[in-house]
């Protein structure tokens, strides 16, 4: 049985706003299936008694002092923006594709 279905890949693509055609979906579904199946081998040794690892280092409570520092000047902050208006990032229309 495959670890990820073609429908699940299509769903993820939609959530990620990626336009994939039928051929790409077939190809990616197969590749992702290989990757997930390979990683899933870990499950065979890590049974229920080992919690999933979210952090590789045994650190907790790393905090910063609450002091503000200057960030980027706006010209620099906006330098990478494809479009700028009124010192703000200009983005394409948000609703419309689906609603």
């Amino acid at each position, binding site marked *: 049985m495959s670890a990820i279905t073609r429908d699940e890949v299509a*769903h993820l693509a939609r*959530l*990620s*706003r990626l336009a994939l055609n039928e051929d790409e979906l077939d190809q990616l579904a197969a590749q992702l299936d290989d990757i997930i199946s390979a990683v899933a081998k870990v499950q065979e040794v890590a049974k229920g008694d080992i919690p999933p690892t*979210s*952090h590789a*280092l045994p*650190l*907790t*409570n*790393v*905090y*910063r*002092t*609450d*002091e*503000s*520092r*200057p*960030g*980027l*000047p*706006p010209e620099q*902050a*906006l330098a*990478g923006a494809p479009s700028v*208006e*009124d*010192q*703000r*990032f*200009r*983005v*394409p*229309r*948000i*609703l419309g594709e689906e*609603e």
Partner: protein
Amino acid sequence: MAYDDAMRRYEPVLGLETHVELGTASKMFCSCATEFGAAPNTQVCPVCLALPGSLPVVNGTAVESAIRLGLALNCSIASWCRFARKNYFYPDMPKNYQISQHDEPLCTDGYLDVVVDTPEGPREFRVEIERVHMEEDTGKTSHVGGATGRIHGADYSIVDYNRAGIPLLEIVTRPIEHTGDLAPQVARAYVAELRDLVRSLGISDVRMEEGSLRCDVNVSLMPRGADEWGTRSETKNVNSLRSVERAVRSEIERQAGVLDAGGRVAQETRHFQENIGRSISGRSKEEAQDYRYFPDPDLVPVAPSAEWVEELRAGLPELPAAKRSRVKREWELSDEELRDLVNADAIDLVAATVDAGASPTDARKWWLNELSRRATESETELSALPITPAQVARVIALVTEGTLTNKLARQVVDGVLNGEGDPDTVVEARGLTVVSDDSALGAAVDQAIADNPDIAEKIRGGKVAAAGALVGAVMKATRGQADAGRARELILERLGAQ
């Protein structure tokens, strides 16, 4: 459907999600400033702009504030919890995810007692708190083009990321049942109580009009006597206490209308419209959101020690409910008098004035009458008036010791509000002390009698009440500085009416 009809047939269930923006100096995961109203994109850095290679570090003060609020809400504090990524694609977050907490909130299982005024007197409701968790605020999008500046029909949007990354606490209630027709008032009282609690902790300025406290209101209806809840709607961004009340009320009326017509309430997000006092439909939740939460690998777990939590618990200030019952007892207030103080948001001001030496009665009178009127006139909050409780206490002392009449005291307050200095300085500079010296007063009294022979004759004839007109003349002649009681005595004396 009219509210009363709706309430005869249906029972509401409420749920409230409140976001509080913390008043920290820096953001949740980076050191950018958090000033409200700064020029767009001037408080941003590689972390909150999600530039490649940047890494977040948690603001310790924000964690401390979250624990303190949790404790004040009678919550348990997790001994270990993680941040999670909430993935979604919307340009208000440049990372394409918001750092939040998912199934491991920092604070759980608390409650907040709130009081609602009813015709039968105050009634208390316990609102159970499901969780308080930490997250970051989003950027501010403005929609350009289209008819109304709304997202629907806009041509494009522009984004300011100054707000992105400001620490937020989200406070989620359990479903609130058995409120009956008091549901709108309970919702409002809860948000007001939460606001006062947050303010007493000093962790946020909680200005609803600036968006530092925002509320999402969930409402569902079930037929009276039923035990299965109906489908709920969620009304977003309800941003004033009045709107909280109106949003619940109008949603109850709307849903009752839908159900009565045999319809089905859609599970959807609605947007409250301040100008029309009700909500309009937004994005439908028919297709459940898929946020693909997972633990954020960039942030290590938060594991507050029991010692730290107990230290914070011991350092909590007197909370609003305790303060209210204390001042009610100490100042011997009726329910109505306490309510007036609460509604005027004046308890702390009056308490500070009492601490500075004034009597509770005088302190209350000045803040609730004269100063409330000034605040209304200048369209500001009482606490924002440029006069301190110590200065008010000094004005009261000057009246009590007879140096000022109430009328002169109001002029002194004028001077203080005008920035002319302390009460004593204003008294000195404006020459405002009561004239009770008989020789100075005597001349004014003689003049008033000479100017008003008709009235003087009436008083001689025994109409003592007419003396008021002469006292008025004396006050006018002395520009309000005469001791009115002494002036009256002198008038009656001279006219042989005593």
